[in-house]
């Protein structure tokens, strides 16, 4: 696949990325069993499974790109390899700018601690310093709309409140790359409007958006381009209408 962009305006680029999981034929989770096996002279056999297989593509800054594919096609693995959670077995992943994986809102939240404490904790998980968060604390609380409960432990929050807080922290400053699944359905209607508006504004200001979705209509509505993954490989990349049309033909015929 030709990579058409010059590196200067690239947001995400993958060159021949393979992620290989090694699955043992028998599960040997303990040292004891491993030792017994080793003493008996039996070796452990593995099957290699490529969750991503030689994947290459390039995404420009400011693009909105959809990622579609059946369950197990490698979408989650792709997002993990882009967000640096796992490293590619082979190939190269290049990412420019700060990434906000909105699939993992509130990662590291401690439910025994207060909303305020969790803003710092989650902020630190996202790589912000304590000082930085302190200077933006009021704005985050304000956006989350949890003003009155911010000093209560978040185990007392509703799930919507927890998600709102997570969203407010993750998107307080404009990330260069946003990873979103489906249409963001966080909190009540008002908050959904507010969060969608914020994402739209960030997009207009130049943020790249990766949308992972099974809802082909929302992919069509939001994305310019789409990547179709199948069994860990890129089946098709192109304009959203073309890819979605092909995909529908294959899926629903």
């Amino acid at each position, binding site marked *: 696949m030709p990579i058409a962009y010059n590196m200067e305006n690239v947001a995400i680029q993958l060159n021949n990325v393979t992620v290989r*999981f*090694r699955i043992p034929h028998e599960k040997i*989770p*303990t*040292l*004891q069993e*491993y030792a017994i096996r080793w003493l008996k002279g039996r070796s452990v056999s593995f099957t290699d499974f490529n969750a991503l297989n030689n994947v290459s593509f390039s995404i420009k800054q400011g693009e909105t790109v959809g990622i579609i594919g059946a369950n197990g096609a490698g979408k989650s693995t792709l997002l*993990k390899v882009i*967000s*640096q*959670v*796992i*490293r*590619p077995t082979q*190939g*190269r*992943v*290049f*990412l*420019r*700018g*700060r990434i906000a*994986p909105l699939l*993992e809102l509130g*990662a*590291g939240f*401690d439910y*025994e*601690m207060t909303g305020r*404490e969790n803003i*710092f*904790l989650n902020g*630190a*998980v*996202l*790589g*912000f*310093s*304590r000082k930085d968060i302190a200077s933006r604390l009021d704005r985050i609380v304000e956006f989350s709309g949890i003003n009155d409960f911010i000093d209560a432990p978040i185990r007392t929050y509703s799930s919507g409140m927890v998600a709102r807080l997570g969203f407010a922290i993750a998107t307080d400053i404009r990330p*260069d790359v946003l990873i979103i699944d489906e249409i963001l359905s966080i909190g009540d209607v008002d908050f959904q409007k507010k969060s969608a508006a914020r994402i739209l504004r960030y997009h207009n200001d130049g943020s790249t958006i990766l949308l992972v979705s099974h809802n082909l209509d929302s992919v069509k509505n939001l994305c310019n381009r789409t990547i179709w993954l199948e069994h860990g490989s890129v089946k098709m990349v192109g304009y959203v209408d073309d890819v979605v049309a092909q995909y529908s033909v294959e899926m629903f015929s």
Partner: protein
Amino acid sequence: MLEYDSAKRPPPAIDEFFQLIRYRDLIFLMVESILKNRYKRSVLGVFWMLLNPLLQTIVLSVAFGTMFRPSVPSYAVYLLAGLLAWNFITQTTQYAMSTMAYGGGLLKRIYIPRATYIVAAVGNGLINLIVSIGALFIIVIFLNHSITMAWLFLPVSIMILVVFSLGLALILSTASVFFTDTVDIYQVLIQALFFLTPIMYPPSIFPSELSQFLALNPFVILIEIFRAPIHANHLPDLDLVVKAVSLALITLVAGWVLFTSKADQLAYRL
């Protein structure tokens, strides 16, 4: 602008070090949250950190005092000093290992430096140790045991204990991700080692032909350099300090290299 390029990565042992520095606030916040959670719902709260070693010392010195008091002056001080060093090493390593083996879920969801949990566990242990030294101080005063300038050596002993424990925690945590029964094996091992290390009893009770085996137990050295300034009121022997420092540094370097070289596999394995 921030850039991530999987092809241009520094060696893992170096990369991880700089990432930990970048995420230092996360480590502090994690230590804070461990401490807060632990004592949040108890009436006495943080006082347990002080009470725990005091009560442990009272129980053990009542139980074993009659046996060893004749040969060990200020038995309670001897006992508590040894216990603090022992508890620090074993509790820190066990805590680090279990958070990695059972609580490392965050590492699968989002990028944070892989060693964050382990460093936070050691930091938590260090705070516990410092508060417990307060309890030890109370006992020293109470028993009229003399305090000398040798106490000034304590920061060095503590540093050595921290370096060693961090190294051991890294090794054990790596092992526990690959083999979950490492947690149980270690548990049994330290239980046995506790009785093979002169903590409750003086080293002199070992028959001389067995005392060379005592030298094979690394905990003996580490506990002695912590206990000598407090209980015996003198600096530990220089050759003992050299041994302890080398042991700690070798353990840390080995642990660091092992852990960082396997760290990429953690997200797959956890």
